[in-house]
């Protein structure tokens, strides 16, 4: 009885918090109409979506991609080129970028996932440099090192220039979160998490590990590509060295890790905590590379000290407190009695 009402309260608090956060997110551009704060808002929501996209692969399967900036960049270039060279409707091209990058990721994923673990990391890292070389070399299409300038969005005041992009990224974030949530509950998601635990065992239980990994990778890359598409239309300019650098990908990793790769909202939380801080650092000390050092140190510290990230760590700490306060948990008692029966077995 008691636990039933506790559960109801818990559910109420959970949904209430979620609703409040959604309202805050929707109202943000008018709560803080200052253009700089709006800019930081767009950046934050962008990275919330990107980090969650990255985690779709890494959080589920345990495969760490170092090169997600490549997918971001390909999405951005695809959208930019379609708008500039072929005069296509911008937001339709943003969606098309997702499909294009997804198809691209099928090829890359097929290559990268042929062997386990290490080669995947290496291929994703190399991918960034392949794309950098392509973007620099294929001048006729990409504009080479001088980059590509896009027409700005028409019919919108300077004051409100960030607002449509804020909402575009917010929609992306919502879609990625929903997809992650859905997968997390599905049979498919169970298979993915099993892959992280023990790939051979998962295969022995009928999980088509190669296909599962590829699908997760393609979804993760596709969403990242959409992010790149929105980004290029927002910034109106793209050049190879910015998008095809390791930095954007590493930012996604850092945020996802900080918040917690094992939780739905972890990566988004990580982005929410880090982006404003990073923007401040770049604003104040941008020329000194201090933000790079701090990024490195923070990443190292998380790996060594808090590998689970904030949300799962808090959750397990809470579970500890809970079980301590409610005496020996039923699970523990049950394990114990079985252990007695087994005795010599261990």
């Amino acid at each position: 009885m008691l636990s039933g009402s506790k559960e109801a309260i818990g559910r109420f608090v959970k949904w209430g918090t979620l609703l409040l956060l959604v309202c805050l997110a929707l109202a943000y551009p008018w709560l803080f109409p200052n253009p700089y704060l709006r800019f930081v808002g767009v950046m934050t929501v962008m990275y919330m979506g990107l980090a969650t996209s990255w985690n779709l692969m890494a959080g589920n399967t345990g495969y760490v991609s170092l090169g997600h900036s490549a997918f971001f960049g390909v999405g951005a270039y695809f959208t930019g080129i379609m708008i500039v060279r072929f005069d296509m409707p911008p937001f339709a091209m943003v969606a098309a970028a997702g499909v294009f990058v997804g198809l691209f990721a099928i090829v890359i994923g097929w290559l990268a996932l042929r062997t386990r673990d290490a080669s995947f990391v290496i291929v994703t890292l190399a991918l960034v440099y392949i794309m950098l070389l392509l973007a620099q070399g294929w001048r006729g299409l990409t504009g080479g090192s001088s980059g590509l300038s896009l027409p700005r969005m028409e019919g919108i005041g300077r004051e409100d220039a960030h607002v449509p992009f804020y909402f575009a990224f917010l929609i992306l974030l919502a879609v990625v979160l929903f997809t992650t949530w859905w997968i997390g509950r599905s049979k498919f998601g169970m298979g993915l998490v099993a892959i992280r635990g023990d790939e051979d065992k998962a295969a022995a239980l009928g999980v088509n590990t190669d296909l599962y990994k590829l699908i997760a990778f393609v979804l993760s890359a596709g969403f990242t590509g959409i992010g790149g598409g929105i980004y290029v239309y927002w910034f109106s300019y793209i050049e190879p060295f910015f998008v095809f650098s390791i930095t954007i990908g590493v930012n996604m990793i850092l945020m996802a890790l900080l918040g917690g790769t094992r939780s739905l909202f972890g990566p988004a939380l990580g982005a929410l905590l880090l982006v404003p801080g990073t923007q401040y650092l770049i604003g104040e000390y941008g020329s000194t590379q201090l933000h790079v050092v701090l990024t490195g140190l923070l990443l190292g510290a998380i790996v060594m000290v808090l590998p689970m990230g904030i949300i799962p760590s808090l959750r397990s700490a809470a579970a500890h407190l809970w079980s301590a306060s409610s005496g020996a948990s039923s699970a523990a008692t049950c394990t114990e009695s079985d252990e007695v029966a087994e005795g010599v077995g261990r």
Partner: protein
Amino acid sequence: MTYFSTYSLSRSFGGVRAVNDATVEIEQGKISALIGPNGSGKTTFFNLVTGMITADAGKVLFKGSSIGGLKPHQVALRGVGRTFQITRLFREMTVLENMLVPVRRFGVRELLKDAVGGSEAARAMLWLDRVGLTKLQGEPAANLSYGQQKLLELASLMMSEPELVLLDEPAGGVNPVMIQRISGLVRELNSEGTTFFIVEHNMPLVMDLCDHVVVFDAGIPIAKGTPDVIRDDPKVIEAYLGG
């Protein structure tokens, strides 16, 4: 038609013939055992049959069609399930989640359906209930005792509704009480129609549980027959006692 058979199955590792020209048959609905001294290639044989490693030569037939050369997940989807010598579970996942991993049929709708709250979970709870792990459904699998892990591994395998189950040392490292539980479960499942092929060192258990025994020595099947026949076969005694 033989239910399950291998024909001249072979595999060497760096010049050592782990499985050598193995021709083995087992019958539907029976409990068969695969025994032999340590290092006689029993686990390698299971690995070959389930596609975990590829054979150098030979055939594997299941219900009249070849399953040799298939990938592990394809073998599993054909209805051949297996457990591992040293229990392998998804240690970070809960007991219930472990039950939800196995795939019965491959299909988009199947994979996208709600595993945590739907009919899958209900089916899983029935199995957990049957093996007595209901109360532990929310525990990480790593927290289970070794015997409980064996039970969970078998129960989760049954979620994929295999027709033929290969058990690699189901009684290894567990106490007599737990051995009774496991063998009782095997007998029950067998009476419900599941065929078993079991690698086991516990001879009393093998003699008690199995209808048919295959003996391996140095990767070669040297004898087969009912437990009584095997017990008195001089080649088997030689393989175990001799050199």
